[in-house]
């Protein structure tokens, strides 16, 4: 038997050296990552990077060419082993286009998951489905059909359907990409609730930086079939090491503004509540020109970056450098943010 300690150390989902090709083109190349129980694990990448194939492998919609996927230390599936039926219910999936049956009522859609799993008793299935609908706040829509629901409501039904078999892991394949920003936030809040209250591990595939930022505690960045970075969200987002990660994380913010001049990016990690810029102006007597600023609350702490113009005078730059080093503020000089 496992001790409590060993149990904690075992990843909920572990992907080892996963590879997959379509028509000779590698979509996933030697991808390894590990997701702990309770994580909200983001997988970020441009479209075509292999994100969807990755989740589709996890729940058996695709069979990998090589490598394996482990669930709590046991092989879930590999090139030679199909996903076992009894483990299917442990890993549920939600989709960008919701994928609800249009000819079944909201309740019927949730019941479908139970019917497929051969859960006994019609009334039993009904009760269970109603509970799941209540969990996502759609109990009163049980008799409606998907055609009469908004996008956000449809995704809630899909989440209720995913919950029906009491999953340990929910895979979200761009689940908010078809929704408006406000609805996206409410769906993300719901997923976060499920993560916190039911302890469900969530793997979020998205090309939307904001989505990953809002909800994930860990992130992996996929580029061109390769996993280029992975780690805690704050580490990866504050210190992206690879060019692709930089362009993904900073791209949409600073693309056009910054390709001629020299700038300095200041990185905040939430440890200081001092008004940094004002202090620099006052104490170093340098006039700071802010080009771009973006701070966010992640896991209760304030993170962010501020990009300022590099002072023209060499001695001002030196003063600024010393001040930042003295106050342990991370910074870097940037020419064009790797966006040439």
């Amino acid at each position: 038997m496992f001790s409590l300690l060993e149990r904690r150390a075992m990843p909920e989902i572990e992907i080892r050296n996963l590879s997959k090709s379509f028509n000779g083109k590698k979509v996933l190349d030697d991808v390894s990552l590990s997701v702990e129980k309770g994580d909200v694990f983001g997988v970020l990448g441009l479209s075509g990077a292999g994100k969807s194939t990755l989740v589709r492998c996890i729940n058996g919609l695709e069979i990998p060419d090589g490598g394996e996927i482990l669930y709590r230390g046991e092989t879930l599936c590999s090139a030679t082993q199909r996903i076992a039926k009894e483990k299917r219910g442990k890993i549920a999936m939600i989709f960008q286009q919701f994928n609800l049956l249009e000819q079944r009522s909201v309740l019927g859609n949730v019941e479908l998951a139970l019917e497929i799993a051969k859960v006994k008793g019609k009334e039993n299935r009904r009760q269970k489905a109603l509970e799941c609908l209540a969990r996502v706040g759609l109990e009163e829509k049980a008799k409606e059909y998907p055609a009469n629901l908004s996008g956000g409501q449809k995704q809630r039904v899909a989440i209720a359907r995913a919950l029906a078999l009491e999953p340990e892991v929910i895979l979200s394949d761009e689940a908010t990409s078809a929704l408006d920003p406000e609805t996206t936030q409410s769906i993300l809040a719901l997923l976060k609730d499920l993560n916190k209250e039911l302890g469900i591990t969530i793997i979020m595939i998205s090309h939307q930086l904001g989505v990953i930022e809002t909800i994930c505690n860990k992130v992996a960045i996929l580029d061109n079939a390769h996993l280029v970075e992975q780690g805690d969200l704050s580490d990866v987002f504050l210190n992206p090491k690879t060019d692709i990660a930089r362009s993904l994380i900073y791209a949409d913010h600073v693309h056009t503004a910054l390709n001629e001049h020299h700038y300095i990016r200041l990185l905040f990690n939430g440890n200081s509540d001092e008004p940094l810029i004002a202090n620099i102006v006052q104490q170093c007597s340098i006039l700071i020109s802010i080009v771009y600023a973006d701070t966010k609350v992640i896991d209760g702490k304030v993170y962010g970056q501020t990009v300022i113009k590099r002072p023209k005078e060499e001695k001002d730059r030196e003063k600024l450098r010393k001040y930042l080093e003295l106050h342990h503020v991370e910074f870097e000089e940037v020419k064009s943010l790797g966006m040439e």
Partner: protein
Amino acid sequence: MEWNEFFIAALETVGMTIIATALAYLVGLPLGVLLYATGKKGLKPKPILNFAIGTIVNILRSIPCLILIIVLIPLTRGVFGRATGAWFTMIIPLFFASFAYVGRVVETSLNEVDQGVVEAAKSMGASSMQIIVKVLLREARPSLILGLALSTISILGYTAFAYDFGAGGLIARAYSIYHNYPMNYLSRPEIWVILILIVVVVQIIQEVGLILSKKTDKRRIAK
């Protein structure tokens, strides 16, 4: 011509059509599912099997109905003891002339089902049988009902060949009026009654199909 002869002829037509359609669906529905399932985007793509079935279906569909009836005379005789002269002898040739067509109609309906819901069912661990019964046939229902109306009308059209084998029915009746009054058949009221009757029946089948399809379709937005 006695009016009750019309009535009997109409019953014969309805009988042939309904029984042949039912049999055609008994075979055509599973055939359509098989064509879909083994197809490119199907549940279990099997290109060679799909090509083989598809070819047989296409060959059957390209044989003119009249030739099929003649070829099938020995079979009809084996089943009913006779191949001509009674309405039920038409059931076998009508069935053979239409089940392949029905298969294609069903396949087309299933192809219209959004792949996403099939994917969702697969992600829940559904077996192929569960996907067919609980997802595909269910989601395609409005389209399948329209297809049924279409197939019924086309089988009704085939019943015309009953004339050549003395198997009765309304359309054969129209022929025999021409046969009996070749010079002035258009001035016989019976032929117009038959014409109107057939048009009305086809309209009814079409409309009932449309209404049923709409009624079962949950994609409408409720007001």
